[in-house]
């Protein structure tokens, strides 16, 4: 995903002279081509993220469209107040890019994990939160983000994530992309767990449970139109994300759901639990510990579908 980001930002900078890239001393050689072409619009701000966000705000107030890039916890929670005050309160066009999100850097320990960032940034007024599902969505999301007049948070993975799309999708902020059609179950995915959601859907299909997968590349604003239809159409809907079930996509949908009159579908959340990781472990290991695997998702969802089908619909409506 980071290579897709580097390639796309280099292409966009060629078309848009307002774009300026700030980074927090990360991405060895990642931006070599960008620097070669646009050296006057590239600043390594060092290990000083609060200043990087403030500088970006000052640049934005002076006509630029800055993009701030570093590892997610340092791009987000480290400098949360600068994002809140300098970017959101002033509503300036700055794109904050968190790389290596979620458990991408699992083996580096919890200082480098980011399973709270979406929760913290999405409550900031005016902030839009984008969590692309594959490298091509990273490019589509960045294209959409540079059209915005206010702050955007773009949450990406690291490298080597498989592509789900065939080409760069036309991303409309706030409108999810259905990447697989289905009729009984719907998995709402945000971020780089998209291949896991698709594999879980394939396993559910094999069990005879037709499963749709929607890529919620935008967590805020939430695609309420899709949710409204989906909760009336499917039996079970589940969110999938490499983020805490508190406050991320799952949390957002749960908030939305709490104000709906009555819906058909049951809702489940798959994400990280309300705890830090203390032991050594790579991304696959920690995902497995937290049940963020296709097998676990398929098993839990199919169980829910079976229980749901045993509950007569008339009983559901009588109690709702």
């Amino acid at each position, binding site marked *: 995903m980071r290579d897709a980001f580097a390639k796309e930002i280099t292409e966009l900078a060629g078309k848009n002279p307002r774009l300026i890239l700030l980074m927090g001393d990360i991405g060895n050689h990642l931006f070599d081509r960008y620097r070669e072409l646009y050296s006057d619009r590239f600043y390594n701000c060092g290990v*000083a993220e609060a200043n990087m966000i403030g*500088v970006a705000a000052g640049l*934005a107030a002076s006509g630029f469209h800055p993009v701030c890039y570093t590892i997610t916890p340092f791009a987000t929670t480290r400098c949360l107040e600068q994002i809140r005050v300098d970017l959101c309160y002033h509503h300036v066009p700055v794109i904050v890019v968190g790389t290596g999100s979620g458990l991408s850097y699992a083996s580096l320990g919890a200082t480098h994990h980011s399973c709270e960032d979406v929760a913290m940034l999405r409550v900031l007024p005016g902030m839009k939160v984008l969590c692309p599902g594959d490298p091509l969505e990273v490019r589509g999301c960045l294209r959409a983000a540079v059209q915005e007049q206010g702050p955007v948070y773009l949450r990406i993975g690291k490298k080597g994530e498989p592509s789900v799309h065939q080409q760069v999708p036309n991303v409309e902020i706030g409108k999810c992309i259905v990447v697989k059609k289905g009729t009984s179950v719907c998995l709402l995915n945000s971020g780089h767990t998209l291949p896991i959601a698709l594999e879980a859907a394939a396993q559910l299909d094999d069990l005879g449970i037709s499963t749709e997968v929607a890529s919620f590349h935008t967590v805020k604003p939430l695609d309420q139109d899709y949710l409204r239809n989906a909760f009336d159409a499917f039996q079970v809907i589940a969110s999938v994300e490499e983020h805490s079930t508190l406050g991320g996509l799952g949390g957002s949908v749960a908030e939305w759901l709490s104000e709906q009159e009555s819906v058909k579908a049951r809702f489940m959340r798959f994400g990280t639990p309300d705890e830090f990781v203390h032991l050594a472990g790579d991304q696959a290991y920690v995902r497995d510990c937290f049940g963020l695997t296709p097998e676990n998702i398929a098993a839990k969802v199919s169980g829910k579908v079976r229980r749901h089908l045993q509950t007569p619909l008339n009983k559901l409506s009588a109690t709702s």
Partner: protein
Amino acid sequence: MAATISDLEELSRRIRFELVKISHRAKTAHLGGALSCVDILVAAYWAALNIDPAAPFAPDRDRLILSKGHAVSALYATLAVKGFFPVSELETYNQNGGHMPEQPSPGCVLGVEWATGSLGHGLPVGAGMALAGKIKKRDYRVLVVMSDGECEEGSVWEAAMFAAQHRLNKLMAVVDFNKWQATGRSREILALDPLKAKWEAFGWHCHEINGHDLAALVDVMGTTVGRSERPIAIIAHTIKGKGVSFMEDDNNWHYRSPTAEEVVKAAAELKIT
């Protein structure tokens, strides 16, 4: 016609009285720290900087960020007297539904370049504005007014390093060094001394002056920028509550607002007739 020092002194007295009045009317705190930075603002707006109330968004205007947002009553009064909006509008200061909150919001009134209040934000943002000017090859200057307590924020020194690294020589930081912060003497809480050596060690030129000497303020703020590749720090030694004898160097005026009787006494001291 350029303002004389005596003109500037009169403006300072007038602005001090305006903010004593609005602090009384609105019952707001932070009067001491507002009074301490008035001379800095007067020197900047009437002599050192290129700021025209008739063209508040001119691309080449100099920018002033009052990073010590708690002293914004001083900025509101300065902007009103300078002509950004009618002085009568100061009566709406901190009134419910009004445009002048106790700490500034973005675009609250013409002339406020940046909303502040949380300390340590102004210098990074000012550095960004100065960097934009450098990239676009514009000549405008950016002046950030900070409090001494504010210099305890780490983001100030992150920005100090950044500005020196990128030779932002149109950037100026003025520290309104009134020696007090919220609960006591700044030296007894987190000592800044040696402050000049700190700025110099971070790669800035640093001038230490009497922050109530208008001639010195005009000279340093108006003539030092751009002489070398370094940004300019100005340590302005000031007195909290300056201009009203019973408020001077008394930290109670970080919290209380003046009574009607005290406003009358202040008017006499400030030679307001």
